[in-house]
């Protein structure tokens, strides 16, 4: 895959490794203190070396940046500090040349209040854009819709004196919701989708999709109208841009999220949100059930679809989604656990959450790369970067990428004071201790280890698209599963993964009599293990240890 793109492969996303990157925080090419598209383009060799198949760019559009760029004021322009549309085209072209695809965030639900559409709409009740947003004479309509940002927003309605009306916003008051019941809006947003795909973009991560439409008597989430519109986008993509991908962000329970796959006619991918916190809980409780429970509750997905799985990203799971009875588990375990309570809803990077324990980091990445779904890495986690909680909620995990131990972490030649955020400088996670240059030179670094893991994953499509089957094990600290895939030549590829989620060494006996005669070969070192027999297969694992095996016929 790296080095060349198979343009006939319309299901590439089912086996791809994604890498989420903030343009602002990756590399600054012009020394103004802020990362830019050119800087990112210059670092593509590194991303190719790491073995990433697809970049996911956080919003890089024109924006007043009151919500990290998720408040877009011009869908067709690049934020000037990041470059221009030509730079974006160049980034995509250079990435493609290295076998890397590029997708980007797109915010469908709302715009910035600075967007010309809204500026016009708010003027009067009868201008041409008057119905492009959702207006109401009173602020009591749709009171069943929850307020998502309860800490800052008292209501989903905000008063506009010029119209003597209220406008609807599911997020911040400076992010008015677009009115998708207006066909002009639906068409205009489809043109936005077309614009960047025309430029070569390989797809979108669609932000906050459950809220596009509102309807009386509902909570305004997951409405049929919303699904219908997403299907319309999908039809447009399939007809005009085959092979491009739609990745939905719907922070809902898996059973509800699968609706966004439609019947293979809506989004290609959706994020699996509850998996990540449950991996943390499994390690904390030294038992696999937090993970296996949620996987047991995860429905099968239609053919051609895929989950996006991640350890960390810029959004966090919040407890607001876990209120029903079937979710009691989350309440009982999370709301009472001091560590989880402290970290929920707070952006932390992976390594600080793991107390910088490399064993768990390896365990988690092995899990991430072998569970059903395509792994999404977050920039900086591959070198074990830390966070700066004092920068406030989301900025704490968006500090500059640490390239070298030199000035400004090698991120920018600007004056330190000019940087958009200070790089980390603490003795444990600071750029003098943690940086790409140092980890590239050190063959036993986490970076090299992860690169090797991604290489192995790429060699085994079974890990991307194989079936998934948890094996019975009496030891609660051990999670073992099989991935199976029928290959084109007719033989079945089987991968066996075994994990110890406890900090003590553990034995396990696995019931695999139906696989008797197969020889497990460890995938990293290619060391053959004793063949599987009629009796339970006995394996011992070191603390937080794991094994990946391919199963071969004896002889």
């Amino acid at each position: 895959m790296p080095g060349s793109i198979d343009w006939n492969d319309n299901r590439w996303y089912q086996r791809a490794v994604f890498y989420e990157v903030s343009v602002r925080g990756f590399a600054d090419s012009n020394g103004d203190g802020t990362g830019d598209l050119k800087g990112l383009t210059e670092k593509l060799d590194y991303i190719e070396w790491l073995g990433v198949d697809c970049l996911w760019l956080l919003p890089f559009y024109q924006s007043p940046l009151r919500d990290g760029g998720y408040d877009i004021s011009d869908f067709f322009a690049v934020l000037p500090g990041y470059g221009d549309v030509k730079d974006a085209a160049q980034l995509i072209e250079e990435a493609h040349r290295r076998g890397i695809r590029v997708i980007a965030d797109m915010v469908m639900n709302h715009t910035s209040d600075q967007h010309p559409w809204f500026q016009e709409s708010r003027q009067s009740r009868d201008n041409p854009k008057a119905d492009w947003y959702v207006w109401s004479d009173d602020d009591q309509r749709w009171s069943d819709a929850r307020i998502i940002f309860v800490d800052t927003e008292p209501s989903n309605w905000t008063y506009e004196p010029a119209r003597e009306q209220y406008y609807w916003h599911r997020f911040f008051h400076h992010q008015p919701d677009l009115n998708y019941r207006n066909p002009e809006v639906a068409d205009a947003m489809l043109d936005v989708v077309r614009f960047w795909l025309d430029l070569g973009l390989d797809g979108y991560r669609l932000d906050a999709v459950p809220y596009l439409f509102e309807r009386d008597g509902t909570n305004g989430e997951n409405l049929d109208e919303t699904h219908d519109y997403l299907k319309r986008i999908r039809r447009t993509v399939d007809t005009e841009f085959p092979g491009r991908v739609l990745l939905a962000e719907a922070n809902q329970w898996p059973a509800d999220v699968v609706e966004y796959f439609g019947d293979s006619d809506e989004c290609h991918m959706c994020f699996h949100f509850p998996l990540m916190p449950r991996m943390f809980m499994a390690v904390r409780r030294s038992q696999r059930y937090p993970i296996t429970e949620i996987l047991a509750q995860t429905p099968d997905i239609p053919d051609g679809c895929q989950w996006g799985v991640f350890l960390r990203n810029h959004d966090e799971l919040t407890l607001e989604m876990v209120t029903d009875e079937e979710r009691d588990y989350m309440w009982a375990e999370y709301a009472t656990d001091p560590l989880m309570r402290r970290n929920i809803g707070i952006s932390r990077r992976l390594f600080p959450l793991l107390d910088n324990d490399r064993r768990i980091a390896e365990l988690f990445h092995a899990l991430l790369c072998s569970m059903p779904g395509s792994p999404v890495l977050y920039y900086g986690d591959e070198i074990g970067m830390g966070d700066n909680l004092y920068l406030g909620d989301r900025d704490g995990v968006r500090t500059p990428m640490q390239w070298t131990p030199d000035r400004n972490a090698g991120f920018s030649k600007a004056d330190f004071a000019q940087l958009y955020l200070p790089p980390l400088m603490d003795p444990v996670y600071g750029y003098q201790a943690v940086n790409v240059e140092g980890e590239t030179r050190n063959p036993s670094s986490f970076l090299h280890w992860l690169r090797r893991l991604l290489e192995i994953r790429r060699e085994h499509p079974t890990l991307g698209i194989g079936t998934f089957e948890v094996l019975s094990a009496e030891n609660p600290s051990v999670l073992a599963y099989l991935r199976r895939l029928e290959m084109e030549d007719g033989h079945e590829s089987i991968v066996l993964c075994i994990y110890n989620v406890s900090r003590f060494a553990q034995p396990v006996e696995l019931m695999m009599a139906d696989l008797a005669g197969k020889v497990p070969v460890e995938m990293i070192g290619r060391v053959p293990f004793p063949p599987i027999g009629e009796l339970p297969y006995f394996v011992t694992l070191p603390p937080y240890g794991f094994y990946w095996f391919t199963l071969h016929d004896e002889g």
Partner: protein
Amino acid sequence: MISPDGIVSLLPDFLPRQRWYGAADRVLSSVSVNSFEVLREEWPMLAWLLADAEFEDGSTATFQLPVGLRPLEQTERFLEGKGRSFLGDVDTDDGPALLYDALVDPELALALVRHIAPDEDVTLVRPLNVEQSNTSVVYDERLIMKLFRRVAEGPNPDVEMTEALAAEGFEHISAPVAAWRQDGRDLAVVRQFLDGGTVGWALALTSLRDVYDSRIDPAEAGGNFGPEAGRLGTITAEMHLALARSLGTEPGDPDAWATTMRTNLSRSRARALDASAIAAAYEALRGIEDPGRAMRIHGDYHLGQTMRTNEGWYILDFEGEPALPLDERRALSSPLRDVAGMLRSFHYAAEVALVERGPSANDDELRSLGRRWEQHVSEAFIEGYCATEGIDALVPGDDDDRRRVLDAFTLSKAVYEVGYELAHRPDWAHIPLEAVHRLIASPR
């Protein structure tokens, strides 16, 4: 063909070697075969028999034994290291044969399950560890056959109770698929196998190992078992509610409970116990106006009878206390007796995990962490139990009375444990003794 005549002479040697014999404290005087049937006539042969044993003290027992036969010259891998399962050599019409416990033979274990549940199509066999009163075999990791080794007149409580619970829609059991009965006696039952589960005991030890190693308060530690125990309490209450609906209840009789407890106390050989203080605690039961209901209960409830799965807790093995005669196992009692059983199990878990640590088991800090774990987990269990809707109808409405009944059953269980440990595992007697002292030192 084979006949029982060649087999019966081998039984006096074979039976006492079995874990399910359960009569090590008695002297066997005679064995006879009261039922015999050949279930499969070609090699390997399968025969089934019931053996009546008489003991010198006049007591009797009936053992169930499926036996397999293979030609003597054959050596089978599955028999290696299974000396305990051999009965010996016998002559058959087809030549000399080795006679053995059929359940260790995968081919015969399949033949037997096909006999009991002919509708089920299974191919893979995995024998489980032998238990005190039964032997279990897993098929295809999907079904489990439990063969009762000591057969009694009347329904086997395990079959009876799980059928009653299944009829009430209580899903947290291994649901029965087929039962094998003869002349009103339950011989074996085939159920769904709980795939991917962990026995509660193992899960509790996982939590305790984390607590003892990290030395963090059990409610704050990574291995906090409180939420699990709370959910187990809820399932336990739901089990009682389903049993009450299905098999009915009667008004609880605290006088009778106290009398039974006192009888058991006087039978106890434990001189280490302060009998008068214990008896006084039992007497506190009398005079309770609302003691809750008396009903069929699990009867031998502890962590080893529970299993954590992806669908939450399951409850296993409703045979009751294996040492008791059948009519006592089926007797009605307070549902709080099961709660008491689980509280005792929490105490044992904390102690066993402490002993695992060897010399540091004497560490005062660890001892108090273990005590704290037991308290924390017990509270969570009781809270989960008592918060379950409808349970108030089965247990005393008054909090103090509820506590008094629970304490009396917990004490009674601990007294029983003291006797058992002194007879079988004297090194362990300190565990229930400590519990007894705690319960009589701080009457509520």
